[in-house]
């Protein structure tokens, strides 16, 4: 890959949470790069640390009980973890924007769509109320809200789920960010609405020439939306590759298992779906060595001693496994 410098670089990120039962490392030494204008998928099952990783980029991990305990997050050369809170507020929205899974909880129910959009715009740009309203209308139109002139004066509860997510996207785009962090943006939506919203996100990402991190558990969405993917398991990166390589030649046994086991539309129905046996280990009692060892068909004695490091593969990706698939 001939990408010059990454727009965003995470190095050895560690995020911990204090729980009643003890301290949990939700993110344990995650390193990844996001290059300008690329769309990177952060994929894994619930509890793998993908959302916490995404939240830490904007320093939105609730604290307490959470805490970024180590590592660095560099955006465009600046160390975000070293910024004062005021500096971080300027980054949020303007440089890096985020959209969430449930737009109803991310929007304020007592203000109109136009008021909330205008508020975000005026926070980062010197515009009059009238100019901000005009800009809001243009944004609503751009994200495909029907009848933007009417919708702008409505409240979030008057909109459908898909329209709310479009309003969130309009808000995220309002200041022309260079990086969009989208955390399961379509998980709460129906498939036909999901298809509309994903199409919109893809179009706008290209139009605004933004980089994007798409957090998802849905490998179908990864395949259709992202150019590169990072697979997480138990707080760690287990594999990173271009989407094409990941789907045609996955190296990590977890990735292989995940790709095999997802229910997907097939030509004919299978008698038995392949499964990954067992379950994700308890984050309070993580095994020594590789965290996937207990579920892995390729496990050997050495896997249980020392965690495999992330190493380069022949096809330009990364994998953390002693016995990767060729």
């Amino acid at each position, binding site marked *: 890959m001939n990408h010059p410098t990454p727009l965003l670089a995470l190095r050895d990120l560690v995020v911990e949470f204090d729980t009643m039962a003890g301290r949990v490392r939700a993110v344990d030494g995650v390193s990844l790069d996001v290059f300008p204008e690329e769309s990177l998928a952060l994929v894994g*099952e*619930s509890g793998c640390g993908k959302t916490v990783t995404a939240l830490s980029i904007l320093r939105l991990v609730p604290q307490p009980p959470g805490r970024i305990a180590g590592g660095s997050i560099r955006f465009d050369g600046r160390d975000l973890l070293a910024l004062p809170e005021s500096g971080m507020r300027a980054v949020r929205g303007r440089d890096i924007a985020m959209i969430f899974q449930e737009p109803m909880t991310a929007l304020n129910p007592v203000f109109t769509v136009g008021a909330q959009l205008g508020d975000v715009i005026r926070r980062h740009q010197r515009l009059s109320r009238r100019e901000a309203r005009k800009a809001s209308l243009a944004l609503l139109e751009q994200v495909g809200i*029907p009848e933007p002139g009417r919708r702008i004066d409505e409240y979030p509860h008057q909109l*459908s789920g*898909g*329209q709310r997510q479009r309003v969130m996207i309009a808000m995220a785009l309002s200041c022309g960010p260079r990086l969009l962090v989208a955390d399961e943006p379509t998980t709460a939506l*129906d*498939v*036909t*609405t*999901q*298809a*509309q919203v*994903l*199409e919109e996100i893809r179009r706008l990402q290209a139009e605004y020439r933004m980089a994007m991190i798409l957090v998802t*558990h*849905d*490998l*179908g*969405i*990864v*395949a*259709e939306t992202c150019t590169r993917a990072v697979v997480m398991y138990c707080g760690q990166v287990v594999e990173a590759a271009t*989407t*094409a390589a990941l*789907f*045609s030649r996955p190296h990590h046994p977890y990735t292989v*298992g*995940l*790709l095999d*086991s*997802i*229910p*997907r*539309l*097939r030509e*004919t*129905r*299978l*008698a*038995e*779906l*392949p*499964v*990954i046996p067992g*379950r*994700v280990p308890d984050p309070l009692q993580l095994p020594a060595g590789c965290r996937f060892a207990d579920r892995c068909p390729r496990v050997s004695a050495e896997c249980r001693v020392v965690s495999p490091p992330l190493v380069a593969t022949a096809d330009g990706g990364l994998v953390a496994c002693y016995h990767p698939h060729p």
Partner: protein
Amino acid sequence: MNRPLLEVRELRKYFPIRGGLFRRVVGQVKAVDGVNLQLVAGRTLGLVGESGCGKSTLGRAILRLQEPTSGQVILSGEDITALPRQALLAQRRQMQIIFQDPYASLNPRRTVGQAIREPLDVHRIGTLAERQQRVTELLDIVGLRDSVRDRYPHEFSGGQRQRVGIARALALNPALIVADEPVSALDVSVQSQVLNLVARLQREHGIAFLFISHDLAVIQHVSDEVAVMYLGRIVEHAPAASLYREPQHPYTQALLSAVPVPDPARRRQRIVLAGDVPSPARPPPGCAFHPRCPRARDRCRQERPELASTAGAPAGTRVACHFPGTEDRETD
């Protein structure tokens, strides 16, 4: 074809909308609006549709967990919509339900052994020792160790809790299980474990399933037949293989094409539907799908199509559309 185990005739479930000073009924949400279904013993019917289409309400109305507004549900030849409360309870032994969120449906203060035994206690089946023995069997059937019987629901993962929910549904040897989004709350690697279990139960125990899901890929793995619902009505009902290969209704086609495919090399033609699902309180006249349908013509706006077999479609396919067919026909 055998006599159906379950027959649903013109089933309707309306919810009143109240408004104004005296909370008068000002409208009806037609959650289920005239559904006809048949299910043969030991087979699985997948019921698919998007949120708000009435699929869960239909499942509950069939079990009379929600009283239907009108219509009939005939289970093993008996019209259960006409049964008095007491007789209904006895019939309930034949029909069970599995819910989406097994955590919400299990009492946190009772051990899973007690939860699984509860239906046997309610229906006073066997002696206590026999019931305990049955719990052991049920745990084994769903792939849980007998040692877990004294543990509480919070000690289990989502997948294991769903196995407990399934074991409880199996306790009375039902002929029919309504499974309402049973894997939607589970992680992908666990989903397939539970789906395999459902398929095995159907095979080995001859249980008929009404399997409700919004996920067409999930439905495909368990269903012999599939019914697609839109705004309270069934728009297409077909043998599973035909529905996935040759969908006839434009809505089914759009649904299928909207499923993200985990294969970056395969780019499909996608039918992106315009707009949102209309409110079931104010369904559009004629065919309810017409405002979003790429094939809609004048007739669709006026006349509601009935579910019927159609020329050129595979055997057993019934579709509610004035212009059904696999290829895209442009409107004139």
